[in-house]
């Protein structure tokens, strides 16, 4: 405590180190991350097969199109880390070692974000390689001069991290993986597509406020402009989608922190 060399006790750095050990020491987490990389690349390759010259898809769309399936992997990773403490009983060991509890959730947020970042970067790289043939063979090329292209590529990584953190928050809040996964899929993927079937001022507004708006991070400037032209709800512009999903992540994690701090751990 007073700068003694062998400091005893819990520190934020030590909790972070413990949580990273916990994340990588469960084989299912590692397989899930590898599977997510493969799914991103295979999906991008598969969708690339249907790209025809002149059908308005950009090069960045081709590379990042695997997100539609890969986001499920990120969501599940977050959800199993968040709920795993409670479903496996690890919570008893974890929260007797760190009885203040909130540092654990904070550390989990950091390690899940880091794991999602690395996984998404690998997925993006794998998708780049997988779609190289499509892009070279008459499909749209990735041209960083096209406005928003670099942002769209980085957006793949950011949106993946956001979905993983949403999963973590839902898992820690609901404490059961099935609930967190179903809830996350509805919020981040399915809800948007259901509402899209009934376009209107109300449904378009709701769509803009769902975490699925985070997928806008993957669009270049032209695609964002097309989205904003078509909507009858609020126009989110360049940063709006990212902001919406960031607010969701913060709110859900805050709710999870509240439950963790106030309620009993079984």
């Amino acid at each position, binding site marked *: 405590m007073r700068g003694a060399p062998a400091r005893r006790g819990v520190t934020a750095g030590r909790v972070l180190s413990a949580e990273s050990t916990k994340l990588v020491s469960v084989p299912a987490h590692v397989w899930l991350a590898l599977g997510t990389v493969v799914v991103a690349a295979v999906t991008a390759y598969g969708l690339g097969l249907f790209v025809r010259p002149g059908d308005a898809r950009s090069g960045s769309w081709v590379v990042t199109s695997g997100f539609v399936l890969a986001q499920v992997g990120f969501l599940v990773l977050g959800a199993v880390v968040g709920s795993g403490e409670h479903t496996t009983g690890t919570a008893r060991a974890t929260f007797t070692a760190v009885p203040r509890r909130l540092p654990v959730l904070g550390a989990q947020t950091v390690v899940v974000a880091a794991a999602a970042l690395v996984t998404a970067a690998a997925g993006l790289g794998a998708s780049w390689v997988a779609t190289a043939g499509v892009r070279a063979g008459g499909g749209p090329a990735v041209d960083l001069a096209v406005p928003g292209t670099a942002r769209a590529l980085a957006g793949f990584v950011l949106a993946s991290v956001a979905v993983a953190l949403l999963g973590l928050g839902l898992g820690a809040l609901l404490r059961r993986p*099935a609930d967190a996964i179903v809830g996350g899929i509805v919020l981040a993927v399915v809800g948007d597509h*259901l509402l899209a079937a009934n376009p209107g001022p109300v449904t378009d507004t709701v769509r803009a406020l769902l975490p699925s708006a985070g997928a806008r991070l993957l669009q270049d400037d032209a695609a964002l402009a097309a989205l904003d032209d078509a909507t009858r709800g609020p126009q989110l512009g360049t940063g709006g989608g990212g902001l919406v999903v960031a607010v969701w992540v913060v709110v859900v994690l805050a709710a999870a922190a509240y439950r963790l701090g106030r309620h009993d751990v079984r």
Partner: protein
Amino acid sequence: MTATTATPRAVEGLSATRRPAFARVLASEWTKLVSLRSPWWTAAVTVVVGGVITFLSAQASSGDPGFEPVDSLSSGLMLAQLGPLVLGVLVGAGEFRTGAFRSTYTTVPRRWPVLVAQSLAVAGFALGTAVLTTVASVVGILPAAASRDLPVDLTAGDAPALVLGMVLFLVGLALLGHALGALLRRTVPALVTALILVMILPIALLMASDPLVAGGDPASLAAPDPAAAPTVVGTLNVLLPGTAGGLLTTSASSGPMDGSPDLGPVGGGLVLAAWIVVLLAAAAVRLRTRDVR
């Protein structure tokens, strides 16, 4: 407590040297299902979501010039379908996740009757849920119909087939979930597989066929040529269990989806049934040939 009272009866049953008759296995699976809390919650959420979304959707379209209340009837199922699917997965995988199978398979060592009985129990529970969800959907379209003074006649035209199709669709999804759960034996992998098959892959295939879904707004799309020949993407999509099952909730006269072969409601139902049979058979094979831990 239960054990002490149940033991003498079990001994009597065994003294007659009878194997557990299938009806008893079925009764036991039914008791196990309805004594859990999650099926009831899932069913309640399904009915409420089905009714509410149908109501909102009918209200939203009631202003359209050609509004036909019955057309909105199945709109709530787009979300409510998750309920039976999740219910099936939880029951199918729950047996292994909770360790309940140890008592199940020592009671009925031949195992596969358990799987069939469990499937029937899930179907029965889902049937009740499906009927209530359909009733809630009918109630959901009534205010919109009344606001336009339009009659709701469920006995005319395609309506009876549509109502039946909705019920069968929901029951089918519960059975699909159950088969996946029993095959994969773990809740999270089974749930993720079910959600990807039923909800996510159709969206991914939509992206393949439709350049604007990811980067644009579907509403702004020009209506595709209805006479277009079936495409690879459309064919793959209609062979997915969720999309095929969804055909049950369309009327036979509405024609095929864009780029898909015209299976019709019956064909769609058969595709879904084929998925269930194949997955359940795989689960039965795994049950026979692999150890139960």
